């Protein structure tokens, strides 16, 4: 088990390396002169001498290879540069916004799991009957709604017309409701469908039939034989979902003025604050990979076939 784990970890490190290279490439390839942009942001009219001096200071005139190596070394130490807009360390900017996104992500993830499990189980156990069809149509409709439009609709109906909930920003738990609902709707519908399909597939398996032949009570079949086989694809799906949620939803955070990483991404891209964009990309990718690695480990425990070093006999 450890050998495959190490291989997997190395694969992820390599992928993270690619992300860093990509992130650095953004820096190198983005149009515009970074030194000029920094100076302009500090509200100083940049004259060529100042620009040249700043470029020298930032080492922007060194060959590409040197710059990329330098950036990588600094990145490993946790120094991802400084924001061109605020001057604060880029990583610190991301860290500052992290709690808001974590809160929204956690809340949305809970809603997603709850709704998708409910919808999936109900649809699977009622397949062919009206409840299944209704859920199917409802899911397709929900998936088709752009989440920013859903957010706007919720805002205008719930907040503006009826005035129940706060519309924007972060503060009381009530502020969480609309953004979390908006964020979780599409994913919940989609995952509900996957859950339904997985459950049906598992229940149709031969070994379930054999478990029935053995005379096992339905509850035992469900808990000991159906669930462990249905879980791995679901765990993977949840890991991907959580991983992406932790990256902050660019769109939903903008609609609800939620001060998280997503909003930071928008302002940084619009403002061409490359170091912060790089920091975001790296941290989001790293978090995603960690979450998926954890899910992988969980799955190996549940389904022993995935763990290839357990000693296979000849067929």
């Amino acid at each position, binding site marked *: 088990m450890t050998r495959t784990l190490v291989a997997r970890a190395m*694969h*992820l490190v*390599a*992928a*993270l390396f*690619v*992300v860093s290279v*990509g992130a650095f490439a*953004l820096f190198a390839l*983005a*149009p515009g002169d970074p030194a000029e942009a920094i100076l302009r942001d500090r509200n100083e009219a940049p004259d060529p001498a100042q620009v040249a001096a700043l470029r020298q200071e930032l080492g922007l005139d060194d060959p590409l290879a040197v710059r990329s190596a330098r950036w990588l070394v600094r990145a490993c130490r946790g120094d991802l540069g400084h924001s061109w807009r605020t001057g604060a360390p880029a990583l610190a900017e991301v860290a500052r916004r992290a709690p808001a996104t974590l809160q929204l992500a956690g809340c949305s993830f809970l809603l997603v799991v709850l709704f998708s499990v409910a919808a999936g189980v109900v649809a*699977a*156990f009622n*397949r*062919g009957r009206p409840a299944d*069809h209704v859920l*199917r149509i409802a899911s*397709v*409709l929900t*998936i*088709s*709604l*752009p989440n*920013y*439009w859903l957010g*706007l*609709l919720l*805002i*205008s109906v719930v907040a*503006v017309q009826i005035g129940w909930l706060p519309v924007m920003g972060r503060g009381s738990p009530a502020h969480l409701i609309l953004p979390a609902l908006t964020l979780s709707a599409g994913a919940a519908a989609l995952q509900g469908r996957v859950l339904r399909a997985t459950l*049906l597939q598992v*229940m*149709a398996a031969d070994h379930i039939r054999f478990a*029935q032949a053995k005379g096992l009570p*339905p509850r035992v*079949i*469900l808990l000991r034989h159906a669930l462990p086989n249905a879980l791995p694809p679901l765990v993977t799906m949840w890991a991907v979902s959580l*991983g*992406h949620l932790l*990256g*902050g*939803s*660019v*769109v939903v955070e*903008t609609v609800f003025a939620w001060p998280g990483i*997503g909003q930071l*991404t*928008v302002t940084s*891209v*619009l403002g*061409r604050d490359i170091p912060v*964009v790089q920091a*975001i*990309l790296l941290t*989001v*990718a790293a978090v*995603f*990979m960690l979450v*998926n690695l954890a899910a992988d480990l969980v799955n190996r425990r549940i389904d022993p076939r995935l763990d290839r070093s357990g000693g296979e006999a000849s067929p």
Partner: protein
Amino acid sequence: MIGNRLLIVIGSSLMLVLGLAALAAPWIAPHDPLAADPALRLQPPSPTFPFGTDQIGRCVLSRLLWGARLSLGTAAVTLALTTLVGMVIGLAATFGGRFVDRAIGVAVDAFLALPGMMLTMVLAGLAGPSTVGVVLGLTAASWAWWARLVRSLALSAREQEYVLGARAVGVHGPRLLLRYILPQLRQPLLAAVALRAGWVIIAISALGFLGLGIQPPAPEWGAMLQEARLHLATAPWLMLAPGVAVTAAVLACNLVAEGAQHLGERPPRELL
């Protein structure tokens, strides 16, 4: 499951209607989508302006129709490009040997580790907000998904018994690809296109919503929604029209995808 054909028919019909409306925009739009008349701003729907006017007096319906051209056209181009790139890379991973496969696998994992919208936004935003930027950004953000799909489809296609037989006889290279592998991929890829089409349309309008996509004054649906935000209470039709348009287009794609996915499924076994 029952009704799959019905879903596909409804979805395709809706797509056809929207596509035709988009194509016919220059002829059926009642007004010039860019013609602004501030005196007529924020008017509710009326016979002259079936969907009302926006904040600088432009006809919303005309903008919707021309916006359809933009969104659907850009989506089509993006899908074509992404599928092509993804296919090439996916096939390269399948047939290029272990090292190539590993290398591509690392790159795919890197790209897939980032949320789609975030990656799209970063790439499109930095490429410069424009239609080209949108297409390039979306392609760069979604090639990984396609490459992974094509790779897994090609791998299982390659291991089919009749293909193994052909390989044993000595068929290889382009001939193997064209006559044995690619035909197997056609149907699942078409289903995947229907599935992704909806996402692409949403992504394009989301970029427009954030100001990073097709720039105003072009009548892009997402941008129109952003403009409508300021007038939520006073002019609700401004927010409804483009939203319904996007939803309709995406719904059409998703209906087809949903129907296609379950087509040919037999009713499953009695549970317990």
